């Protein structure tokens, strides 16, 4: 087998392979440092962080589903100051690849505040902005459900992010994800991550109550993979900035499929929850699969469909 090239480039940031655990499914990386070789993984998207520490939602926060799970963790996090002063420096000591800070907010000001701090943090390579949060000044509607609000967030964070690439993470709970993607690109986004979880709900029919305490949550897992592939394909055709594909990826074959659809890097989310070793396992499986498919360099297949 000839040497396979797995490395990809995201806005000038080179990843040794395209595999990135998705935000919220891998903690701050540190939690798994003893269980696996983090450095096998191309990049790590850290747990979503807000200005202030948040406890998140009451439990139960998890509901199992066919082909996935619903989560309503509610952005539990220690706040941006702890992220940049403790979590990232600790991870940087042991991890040499791309560190992606995932930023959430409930107002434009909060996004800007957090992104400014993250941009100033030496250990962080890429900013990923989660616009699926409700806008407290906009009637609680998620920023990511309106092209105008998505563009406002993008402009605000680009104004304070310096040289750090900004990826906007899109919500799939919209009528036309392409129009929102284009609005973010036009507002200056350097890249896009898609998709976030699908709003879902499960009911315990014996107890006659929603399973998760918050009633609803984000559905993710292999069941959403075809929808994510479709959205990645539509968005990458319409935009010229790089896309990190996310949604239901659970094996090396899915990574190839997501890249053919248009993704430059591929995030693995829910699958980490049932197999903490899945990211390094996928990295290990890729060269043989590429050989079988006649691929020498992953860059050959990005967006060929």
């Amino acid at each position: 087998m000839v040497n396979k090239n797995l490395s990809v480039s995201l806005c000038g940031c080179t990843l040794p392979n395209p595999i990135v655990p998705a935000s919220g499914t891998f903690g701050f990386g540190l939690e798994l440092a003893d269980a696996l070789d983090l450095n096998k993984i191309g990049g790590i998207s850290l747990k979503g962080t807000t200005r202030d520490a948040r406890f998140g939602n009451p439990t139960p926060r998890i509901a199992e589903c066919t082909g996935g799970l619903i989560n309503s963790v509610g952005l539990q996090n220690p706040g941006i100051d702890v992220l940049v002063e403790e979590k990232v420096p600790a991870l940087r000591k042991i991890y040499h690849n791309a560190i992606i800070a995932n930023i959430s907010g409930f107002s434009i000001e909060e996004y800007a505040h957090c992104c400014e701090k993250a941009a100033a943090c030496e250990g962080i390579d890429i900013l990923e902005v989660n616009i699926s949060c409700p806008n407290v000044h906009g009637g609680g509607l998620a920023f990511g459900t309106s092209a105008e609000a998505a563009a406002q967030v993008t402009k605000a964070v680009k104004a304070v992010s310096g040289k750090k690439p900004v990826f906007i993470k899109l919500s799939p709970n919209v009528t036309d994800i392409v129009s929102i993607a284009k609005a973010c690109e036009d507002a200056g986004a350097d890249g896009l991550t898609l998709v976030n979880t699908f709003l879902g709900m499960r009911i315990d029919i014996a107890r006659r109550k929603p399973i998760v305490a918050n009633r609803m949550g984000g559905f993710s897992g292999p069941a959403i993979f075809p929808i994510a592939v479709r959205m990645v394909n539509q968005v990458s055709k319409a935009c010229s900035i790089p896309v990190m594909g996310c949604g239901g990826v659970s094996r090396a074959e899915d990574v190839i499929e997501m890249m053919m659809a248009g993704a430059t890097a591929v995030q693995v989310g829910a699958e980490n929850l049932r197999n903490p070793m899945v990211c390094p396992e996928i990295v290990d499986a890729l060269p043989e699969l590429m050989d079988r498919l006649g691929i020498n360099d992953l860059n050959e297949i990005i967006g060929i469909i």
Partner: protein
Amino acid sequence: MQKIFFTIVSNQVVADKTYRLELGCSQDIAIKPGQFVNIAIDGKYLRRPISVSDATNRSLLLYYKVVGEGTKLMSEMNPGQQLEILTELGTGFDSAKCRNSALLVGGGLGTAPLYMLCKELLSQGKKVTVVLGFNKASEVILEEEYKALGAELLIATMDGSVGVKGFTTDAINQYNPEFDFFYTCGPMPMMRALCAALPTSGEASLEERMGCGAGYCYGCTIQTTKGPKRVCADGPVFDKEDLIW
């Protein structure tokens, strides 16, 4: 945490809807009392976290009750079958917190994880009183096993069909055992009542719906007097003083 394939040695019903699952593997594990394992089940997306009742460096003994679809599938598994399991999960009981004599209180399936702790405490030369609570005689498990260890054993059943009629607290009040620290695992109302009633410090093993089971998804966080804690990784065993009921 290790991901290991285990082979089912036996999987037998031992009480009402309650199964005893014996597993073996060919690489070394190091389980501490109060830790749990997370079992992958064909046909279910998430693993099933099950507390460890006893273990050696190459074997696991688990008890589980059929309460839903996942445990139903588990009850249909046969000897010889392979299971992919994440082992050595969670922060278990700390036997060093007991100086001379311990009180172990288990309710229902919560009697299982105390077994390995009981063995450890006895091996340290400590005196152990075990109080097991069940609804009725058909649910009683581990009675002979605890007796065989040489621990003082009290049983309480709600219908009085075995031992003291009533709660574990009724059995404790009746026999007034001597202890300087207690350990408990079982239904939340039982543990809450115990933590309020018993005068000494103690540890309680909690249960919560989990995502990853290993501390990185933050799906099972509870609020404690020391801030947010993950039941799967910071627990499942917590100090009585830390719990907010």
